[in-house]
């Protein structure tokens, strides 16, 4: 299977040639397969935001290439613009970019920029709103009248309405209450299932990542430090900690249990797995 997005020796240097020069990405080779649900974790300033802004052509590499479906996205100006529609990027706190008079108009900005016919725009806007569970009654309201969680979902719908093949979200649940978080995560999963889209999610919450993704990439100090399934990555608890990251709480509990002398599988990383592991342990020693 050919990767849908690939970076080759991608390097990005901010403020080159000034005293403020900083290498944000250093020869990063990275690829995303179609249909994958990928998580990116990394400490603040590790370069993850810089990386995702390269994937849809918002930032131009200082050196190296970014390929979409095998084509260099900076090869042709027209193609660069097309890639922005094919790779939808939802920024952190996306509700701060809302500006239109009504929710409908705001969601339709992307499709309108794609120069789609009126009917198609309508269909996409309503479909995108359905994905994020926005009731039809809010469509004619001003986005500024909505609650924080609703605003966030309007902003995400604005990107989904472009029907991108790849959806990238930078900390989509930051600053939301538990209910709002769960809702947004399930919306994202629903979108991926329905569209067979590729999803890349940046997050600081290991639990969130553990529950959702199939593949996990760790970025540290402008490099890719680890790349594998959540199970493989979370097996390196001490290394993650040295990078200022951590493993999910459940894994920590199991690591402690192991230290206390209990023979448990420390590779669990979701509560479901933990439950199964504990039940298995109990089943192995009846009456305990």
């Amino acid at each position, binding site marked *: 299977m050919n990767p849908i997005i690939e970076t080759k020796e991608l390097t990005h240097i901010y403020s080159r040639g000034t005293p403020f020069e900083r290498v944000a990405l250093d020869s990063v080779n990275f690829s995303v397969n179609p249909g994958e649900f990928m998580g990116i974790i990394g400490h603040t300033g590790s370069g993850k935001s810089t990386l995702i802004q390269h994937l849809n052509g918002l930032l131009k590499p200082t050196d190296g290439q970014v390929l979409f479906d095998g084509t260099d996205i900076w090869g042709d100006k027209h193609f660069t613009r097309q890639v*922005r*529609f094919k790779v939808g*990027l939802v920024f952190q706190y996306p509700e*701060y*970019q809302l*500006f239109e008079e009504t929710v409908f108009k705001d969601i339709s*900005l992307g499709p309108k*920029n794609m120069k789609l016919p009126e009917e198609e725009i309508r269909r996409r806007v309503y479909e995108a709103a359905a994905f994020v569970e926005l009731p039809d009654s809010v469509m004619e309201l001003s986005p500024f009248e909505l609650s924080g969680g609703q605003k966030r979902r309007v902003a995400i719908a604005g990107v989904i309405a472009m029907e991108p093949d790849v959806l990238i979200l930078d900390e989509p649940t930051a600053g939301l209450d538990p209910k709002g978080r769960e809702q947004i995560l399930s919306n994202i999963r629903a979108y991926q299932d329905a569209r067979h889209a590729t999803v890349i999610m940046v997050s600081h919450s290991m639990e969130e990542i553990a529950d959702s993704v199939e593949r996990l990439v760790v970025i540290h100090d402008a490099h890719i430090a680890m790349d594998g399934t959540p199970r493989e990555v979370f097996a390196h608890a001490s290394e993650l900690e040295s990078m200022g990251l951590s493993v999910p709480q459940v894994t920590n509990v199991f690591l402690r249990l192991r230290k206390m002398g209990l023979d448990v599988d420390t590779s669990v990383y979701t509560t479901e797995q933990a439950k199964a592991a504990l039940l298995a342990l109990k089943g192995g020693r009846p009456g305990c």
Partner: protein
Amino acid sequence: MLKDITIGQYFPGDTPIHRMDPRTKILNVIFYIIALFSCGGIVGYVLVLAYLIAAVRISRIKLKTILKGVKPLIIIIIFTALLNMFYTPGNELVHFWRLTITDAGLKNAVLMVARIIMLITGTFLLTYTTSPITLTDGLELLLNPLKKLHAPVHELAMMMSIALRFIPTLIEETDKIMSAQKARGADFETGNLIQKAKALIPILVPLFVSAFRRADELATAMECRCYTGGEGRTRLNPLHWQRLDTIGLICGIVLLTGVIVLRQFGL
């Protein structure tokens, strides 16, 4: 891109100019500007230029940084030069089509450009070597006598420091909003003037919304910390007048007097 703007930027350092009291520096800039505009002839300009060069050397600000500050104003400078060159009456030097260049025009243009560049550089030197907070502190103290006339000096100074404080924040915010709208296919580069102006709406609306939100939050935060205006407020770092400041002030006065005296002789 937007981050490259250097207006109001401060470059920390430990030179006599950095250490000087902001009041001395503000007064010196005022003397300098008056001197610059009272120059009667080339000698006067040379004197002011020498003063500027000396100050820049002492402050150890790189020439490159200073030129970067002048760069955004290059169009205004060129425009002024051209206007002066073509529209000053005098002895004709070159004539083509409907344009004439006169000797007086040429001289005017050169002096005007020199004057603008020196004006910008001199004032930039103040912001380059003084942190915004000390700058507004100095301004507040200098304007203190106006309090007797019930002028809201403290409030003005506070507004100024808040405004300066938020320039970088708002620039960063603009950058972020621009990227976000670009990710939705917004196009800021192509199109005619009207299309370009229209393309600004998706940036300006969120920017204003967030500026108002920030203002509101800041006001609440200030109230929570019992801010009630300038009455009875003390400073963390009170300003002290040093010998350095006396010397600086004398230099400024000498420059101004020198230029005015030279002017009497038509130099």
